[in-house]
């Protein structure tokens, strides 16, 4: 993503908007500090958030700028197939969380996902997931920090050290002061900023392209391949679509394991819903989040598609973008796929609007750091420090530990950011690391919630085996890419197929198999060990728990009604772009 020259520069009016945002987030940190005195307030925002706030924060925690820019680039590279990551790769899981899983998280009064594992499977599973999660979050926060600094350098020519330290100090201040509450307020702000800052690009783009039908025709004419504009009809084979994916990978790997793993067991997002003020709000929050998530492709995927035919140089020639790190990008000053969103911003947004767009990107990065670091401080304080190091401290002591762990978490993140700066490939590894853990974790949590016979030993060994299997598969592919053919169950796959699938499909199948290993080992070990007494499962497992009425009095208050509405719209959208 390195360029010799910056894309644009900010006018004074843009700087004013950016400064306004910084002033507001710092003010919010100091403002909410007064109401952040207990551990429940610091780590779970007092469980006082309405369904709308928890829902927007839930979807916003995932709407990081790295995501936005990466998927806009993926849409440019692979076409409309990238939308799967926002639709089937998110919505069903979010609805499942709201309808099926949330009651158990909420009734058990757990403060974290590792906390639920402790209640259900004991200390072993909690320790393993807590340590892995804490480790991952500080690394991810560092990756976000470095990415923000890099984007600011590429787009605006800012010094990398300056951007990193300003971002890190601001986030550390507002999370340390206000905990999850301040992180949630900033996530809601970020959500609104992203809509305000980015929605104008697809609107103006569609006007310039002459509407959706005309855009489709132009893209197919330019790419010479209708597959760029179809969601499902081209993924019957690895070789007939630009992404090299197969529908089994999309449905089972992405739509089931990865998506359910991320949206239902990644504490970073689940923590937002746990802050809801009652069971109905906790169930509605993911459903509200899913409705907004469904429209994110409008300002992420659509700009990537628009760029395929509208991004032109001053002479009117279409600008071709290239992969990061390619010869054209590194040696010839060409732009990379990931720059497509900033390039479209610069194309349409003049002074003021550009400042708003850049502020939205900065807010996205900072909120990504804040989300990770607030989840880190919760898991560290509750599930590591409070569970193994100092079990009997006062509530005030744990709040103080939460504040200190925020600062230490940010310091480690800064260290990670510098590490990534030294070797960019570390960034890919960190992102891969996250996937090692999430798919098997989903296997453990879902069996824990839905299957009474799962035992403590089954949960722990299943989680360990699934994680080990995921790491094993990753190492096998790192050692020899040809090993991918076993993961996709095509032992005779050609070198060309392997090359096509290695970027995307390999991750989907690794997640799928590691989940299967986790489930298989959990089931086998559970049957080999003594069943847990029914009484110990109350409030934790389906069948042993009476789920209280959520308080909805009419159809429009029922989470299930809105889940069906969202599912129907999702179905229609998929049919439309079949």
């Amino acid at each position: 993503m390195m360029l010799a020259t910056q894309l644009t520069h900010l006018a004074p009016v843009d700087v004013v908007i950016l400064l306004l945002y910084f002033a507001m987030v710092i003010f919010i940190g100091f403002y909410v500090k007064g109401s952040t005195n207990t551990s429940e307030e610091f780590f779970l925002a007092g469980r006082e958030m309405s369904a709308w706030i928890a829902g927007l924060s839930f979807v916003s925690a995932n709407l990081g700028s790295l995501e936005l820019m990466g998927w806009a680039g993926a849409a440019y590279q692979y076409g409309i197939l990238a939308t799967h990551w926002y639709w089937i790769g998110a919505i069903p899981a979010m609805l499942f969380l709201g309808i099926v899983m949330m009651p158990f998280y909420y009734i058990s009064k757990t403060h974290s996902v590792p906390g639920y594992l402790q209640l259900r499977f004991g200390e072993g599973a909690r320790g393993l997931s807590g340590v892995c999660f804490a480790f991952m979050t500080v690394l991810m926060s560092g990756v976000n920090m470095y990415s923000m600094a890099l984007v600011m350098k590429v787009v605006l020519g800012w010094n990398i050290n300056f951007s990193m330290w300003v971002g890190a100090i601001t986030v550390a201040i507002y999370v340390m002061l206000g905990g999850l509450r301040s992180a949630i307020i900033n996530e809601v702000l970020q959500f609104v900023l992203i809509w305000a800052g980015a929605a104008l690009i697809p609107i103006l783009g569609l006007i310039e392209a002459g509407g959706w039908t005309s855009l489709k025709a132009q893209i197919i004419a330019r790419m010479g391949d209708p597959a760029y504009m179809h969601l499902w009809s081209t993924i019957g084979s690895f070789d007939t679509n630009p992404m090299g994916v197969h529908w089994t990978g999309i449905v089972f790997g992405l739509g089931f394991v990865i998506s359910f793993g991320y949206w239902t067991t990644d504490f970073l997002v689940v923590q937002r819903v746990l802050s809801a003020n009652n069971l109905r709000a906790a169930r509605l929050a993911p459903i509200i989040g899913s409705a907004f998530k469904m429209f994110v492709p409008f300002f992420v995927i659509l700009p990537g598609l628009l760029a395929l035919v509208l991004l032109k140089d001053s002479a009117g020639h279409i600008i071709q973008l290239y992969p990061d790190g390619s010869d054209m990008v590194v040696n010839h000053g060409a732009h990379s796929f990931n720059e497509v969103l900033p390039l479209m911003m610069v194309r349409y947004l003049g002074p003021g609007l550009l400042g708003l767009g850049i502020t939205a990107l900065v807010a996205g990065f900072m909120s990504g750091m804040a989300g990770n670091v607030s989840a880190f401080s919760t898991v560290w304080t509750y599930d590591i420090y409070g569970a193994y190091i100092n079990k009997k401290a006062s509530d005030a002591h744990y709040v103080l530990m939460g504040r200190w762990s925020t600062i230490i978490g940010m310091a480690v993140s800064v260290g990670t950011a510098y590490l990534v700066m030294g070797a960019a490939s570390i960034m890919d590894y960190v992102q891969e690391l996250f996937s090692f853990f999430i798919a098997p974790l989903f296997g453990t949590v879902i069996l824990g919630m839905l299957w009474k016979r799962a035992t403590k030993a089954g949960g722990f060994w299943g989680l360990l085996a699934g994680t080990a299997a995921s790491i094993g598969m990753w190492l096998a592919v790192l050692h020899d890419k040809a090993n991918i053919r076993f993961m996709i169950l095509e032992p005779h796959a050609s070198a060309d197929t392997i090359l096509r699938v290695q970027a995307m499909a390999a991750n989907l199948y690794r997640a799928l198999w590691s989940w299967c290993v986790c489930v298989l080992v959990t089931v086998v070990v559970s049957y080999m060990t003594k069943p847990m007494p029914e009484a110990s499962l109350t409030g934790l497992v389906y069948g042993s728990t009476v789920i209280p009425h959520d308080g909805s009095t009419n159809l429009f208050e029922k989470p299930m009604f809105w889940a069906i509405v969202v599912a129907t719209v999702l179905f229609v959208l998929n049919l439309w772009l079949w």
Partner: protein
Amino acid sequence: MTTPHHVDPSTEQSLSIWFFVGVLMLACGVIIFCEGIYEFSHPPATVLANLHPAFWWGLLMTLFGGFYTIRFRPGKG
């Protein structure tokens, strides 16, 4: 380790989350709207500047932000 406090920050505290949203949108909206007026005489070198996006978007944000600022202003409950 828990001491629940029954205070709803979106209603009982003096400043609600939606108020922050309103103020930020209003402030940005006014700035962009003013820039949009200026651009009628000094158009920027962007594509489709003839549609005056800053003027219209700024106006929309001002209305949105203004509504939220007033609706959730401190002390309104």
